[in-house]
């Protein structure tokens, strides 16, 4: 409704104007008074002389008292109607439209760059302070919702909160996650939020979305596909139509930052008593070079070593550490490069499972009493070339027949080799699936007994028993048998870790391994499977794929000498060892994740070393390292022109560097922004009720 000007500086308005119709009820006290004057009783009276004298003496006073009481009663009705009509008083010229209350969506940037501390307060603390200020200085009747712009974004308060203390409590309780921020997802989240508030709270006629952010480039200039960008712009435009967008910039241009961007072991498998090489990457996101930057190595919380490193401006450097683990189990490694204003990315964590030995089960699909005639005999030797009983043997292989799949518990083995197994039953497929879910690894060697259709059916996601889909364990579908001998292998530029060790070691003979027969492997389109080693004609020889929490390696030929000379070749032992190490290394990868990735059932929002405890009945602790995405460590900002032209072209918004600048009601508190009057009026009604009772009692109308 248009405001009614009381005087030049104030505007008076009503939210529920139709309620004023009830003002007619103000006539009720007058009508009741007149009715009571008409409806009277009659009686004879003897002491009339004194009554007349009293009337004569008190007529004016009585009239005055009656008028006073009538006026109070009429005013009571008027005020109650007015309170129901929800009046407000606002200053003209305010940023908000008089006549309505405002719904403010406070979007606080939750990316870890907000942890940057240029002074004694971080950007996130400053954002929380500003959010509190906005809430506390907004006029009464304004409502607030709160969104944390992280990845994924989270709605903290989705129902508009009218009580400032409630929203302030939520703001105070906010904790900065160590994630990045997803602006398109945040816009997609806020848009329906604003719409639902528009729909359900018509009283809140105006909407504002306040982004409290450091305008970091990673967040505000997201690299999106064309379709995603178009969707983001569409949603941003709709949001700007539904609400006024305000971007409050809390960032500092030219902020320097150094981050530990990587930490890894150079050996896929770490064993007790064997030295392991660690490599940490440092990246300087600033314009000033860092010389003699201290870098510390901590193992299980103990400081082991410190090195100094020069990191060029806007450049990277790496530092190596070596360490020998003396005890098996999960060990937490941390590399620190302290000394800048953003502490979160100065630490990198790694959990290394240190193994005393590995147990491998070799299922022989064609067992033979004659040495090296069975399908897994060469393999067993390659796994433990020094003999399985040797003291320092890392791998302890056991050879068994197919029945062991159902008879033995696979959980005790780190890796299961399946050599020339003709086919699998649905029960066996389920056992293998369960084994992969528990983190185990499978290596398939094929052979003349293999029934490709049965493999594809039982292990390749085909229909299982009763029509239900079976597990999909195979990285590739098995095709026909190719019996054209191949005498040259393609290492595919040694990209895969399994064959990386062969780079520059041609004498190992990997590339000259003759393959007489092999199954053609068909990799489905968009399959996550990777080809480790291929043949000269391009047919994959070894493919791998992570399945569940384990890894599956499929070798297209046999593990014995019937289809290939590979078991006889000098490259076989190191190849098998690399396969085992790579399979076991999968466990290491499982224990090193990024912030926001699932850690068992939980989603981590903080970086650091965490222990996931599961059970009972089987208590199990799993140590995990959770690291931040260092893309967020680049503190460069988008400037206003980029924001206007590249991020939100055609989307109206206002950019401010403070809430005062944004025209918020910060000076003089709520009085500056006017007032929401119903509560005050109801207090007045209460006071008038008390006055009416008091006067009625005083005038003799009550009691």
């Amino acid at each position, binding site marked *: 409704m248009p405001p009614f000007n009381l005087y030049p500086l104030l505007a008076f308005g009503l939210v529920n104007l139709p309620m004023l119709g009830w003002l007619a009820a103000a006539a009720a006290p007058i009508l009741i008074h007149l009715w009571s004057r008409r409806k009277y009783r009659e009686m004879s*009276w*003897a002491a*009339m002389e*004194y*009554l*007349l004298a009293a*009337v004569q003496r*008190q007529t004016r006073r009585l009239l005055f008292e*009656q008028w006073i009481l009538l006026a109070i009663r009429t005013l009571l009705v008027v005020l109650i109607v007015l309170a129901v009509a929800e009046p407000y008083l606002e200053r003209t010229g305010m940023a908000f439209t008089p006549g309505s209350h405002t719904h403010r969506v406070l979007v606080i940037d939750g990316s870890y760059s907000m942890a940057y501390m240029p002074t004694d307060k971080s950007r996130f603390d400053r954002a929380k302070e500003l959010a509190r200020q906005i809430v506390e200085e907004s006029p009464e009747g304004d409502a607030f919702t709160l969104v944390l712009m992280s990845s994924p974004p989270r709605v903290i308060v989705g129902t508009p909160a009218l009580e400032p203390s409630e929203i302030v409590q939520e703001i105070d309780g906010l904790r900065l996650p160590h994630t990045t921020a997803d602006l398109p997802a945040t816009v997609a989240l806020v848009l329906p939020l604003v719409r639902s508030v528009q729909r359900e709270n018509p009283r809140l006629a105006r909407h504002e979305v306040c982004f409290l952010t450091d305008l970091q480039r990673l967040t505000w200039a997201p690299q999106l596909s064309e379709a995603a960008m178009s969707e983001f712009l569409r949603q941003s435009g709709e949001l700007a139509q539904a609400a006024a967008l305000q971007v409050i910039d809390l960032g500092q241009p030219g902020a320097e930052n150094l981050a530990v961007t990587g930490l890894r072991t150079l050996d896929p498998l770490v064993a007790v008593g064997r030295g392991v090489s660690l490599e940490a990457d440092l990246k300087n996101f600033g314009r000033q070079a860092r010389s003699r930057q201290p870098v510390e190595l901590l193992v299980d919380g103990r400081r082991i070593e410190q090195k100094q490193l020069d990191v060029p401006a806007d450049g990277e450097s790496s530092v190596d550490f070596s360490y020998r683990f003396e005890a098996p189990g999960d060990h937490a490694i941390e590399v620190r490069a302290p000394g800048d204003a953003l502490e979160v990315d100065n630490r990198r964590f790694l959990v290394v499972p240190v193994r005393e030995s590995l147990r491998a089960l070799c299922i022989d699909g064609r067992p033979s009493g004659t040495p090296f005639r069975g399908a897994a005999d060469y393999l067993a030797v390659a796994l433990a070339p020094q003999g399985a009983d040797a003291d320092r043997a890392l791998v302890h292989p056991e050879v068994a027949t197919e029945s062991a799949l159902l008879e033995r518990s696979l959980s005790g083995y780190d890796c299961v080799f399946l050599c020339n197994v003709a086919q699998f039953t649905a029960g066996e497929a389920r056992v293998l699936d369960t084994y992969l879910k528990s983190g185990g690894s499978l290596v398939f060697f094929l052979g003349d007994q293999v029934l490709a259709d049965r493999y594809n059916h039982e292990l390749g996601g085909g229909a299982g028993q009763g029509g239900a889909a079976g597990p999909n364990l195979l990285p590739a579908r098995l095709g026909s048998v190719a019996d054209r001998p191949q005498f040259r292998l393609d290492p595919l530029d040694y990209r895969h870790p399994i064959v990386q060790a062969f780079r520059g070691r041609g004498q190992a003979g990997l590339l000259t391994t003759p393959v007489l027969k092999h199954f053609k492997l068909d990799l489905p389109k968009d399959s996550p499977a990777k080809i480790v080693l291929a043949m000269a004609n391009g047919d994959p020889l070894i493919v791998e794929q992570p399945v569940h929490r384990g890894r599956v390696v499929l070798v297209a030929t046999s593990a014995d000498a019937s289809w290939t000379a590979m078991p006889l070749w000098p490259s076989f032992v190191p190849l098998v060892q690399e396969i085992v190490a790579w399979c076991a290394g999968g466990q290491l990868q499982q224990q090193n994740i990024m912030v926001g990735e699932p850690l068992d059932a939980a989603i981590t929002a903080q970086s650091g070393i965490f222990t996931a405890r599961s059970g009972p009945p089987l208590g199990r602790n799993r140590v995990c390292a959770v690291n931040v995405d260092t893309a967020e460590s680049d503190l460069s900002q988008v400037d206003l022109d980029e924001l206007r032209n590249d991020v939100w072209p055609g989307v109206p918004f206002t950019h401010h560097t403070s809430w005062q600048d944004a025209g918020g009601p910060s000076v003089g508190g709520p009085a500056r922004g006017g007032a929401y009057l119903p509560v005050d009026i109801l207090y007045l009604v209460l006071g008038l009720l008390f006055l009416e009772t008091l006067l009625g009692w005083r005038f003799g109308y009550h009691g």
Partner: protein
Amino acid sequence: MEKVRDYLDPQTLARLQGLQLRARLIVEGYTSGVHRSPFHGFSVEFAEHREYAPGDDLRYLDWKVFGRTDKYYLKQFEEETNLVCHLLLDTSESMRYKSEAAPLSKLEYAQCAAAALAYLILHQQDSVGLVTFDREIRSLVRASSNPSHLKQLLYVMEQAAAERKTATGPIFHDLAERLKKRGIVIVLSDLFDDVDSMMTGLKHFRHRRHEVVLMHVLDPAEVDFPFEQVTLFRGLEQLPDVLVEPRGLRRAYLAEFGRYLRKLKAGCRMHGIDYVPMRTDQSLEVVLSSYLASRG
């Protein structure tokens, strides 16, 4: 005995027919409670033998006693102990008023009181007369001590119709001239009249050496003004009607009425007049007995 006490309640009396019975019951109740004649207090002079003292009138010496005992005693005269009481009953229109809370109208209550007093006085062989009046004397019954005189008094009282205006001042002056024999004058009225004029009349009685007792009969509503609803008060005795909101006016009315009562009581005190307030919701026996007891 208990039954007799129940009848003494004015509300119970109101249910009974006939004034004679009412008065009799009341007096019986009174005498049975006290066990002595209540009218000792009403005697103007007390009869006794008194030893002679120099200066006494020798005409009153009891020579018979002197002959027997050779001592001088003064003789008491029988005829001087005979009390004459005049009951002045107001029968003006205002006496007709009876509120909802009251069991009797003021006139009925005053009639009961007058009947009870007459019964008492006659019972002790004293004389009692009755005057009914409004703005003029309506009836006048000469004082007599004959027990059968009570019937005539009650009859006259029953015939009284409250219809006219009061004018107590001239009436009292007139009566003061007419009632020659010194005695007790008991006025039973609501006294809604000009206080100064009324006091002048009463002063005339005092001047004639009458003892004056003012029994002020009021309805409880007149004293408390308990009304809540807007009311059209219709004036009795030709006074105008007035529509008022009683709750707002109560305080002012009570102030006016209190002023009137204070003036009335002050006048009574000044002229040695006994003032006996009577509310028609009070038990008549209690009012009468407490007053008579206070006279000793």
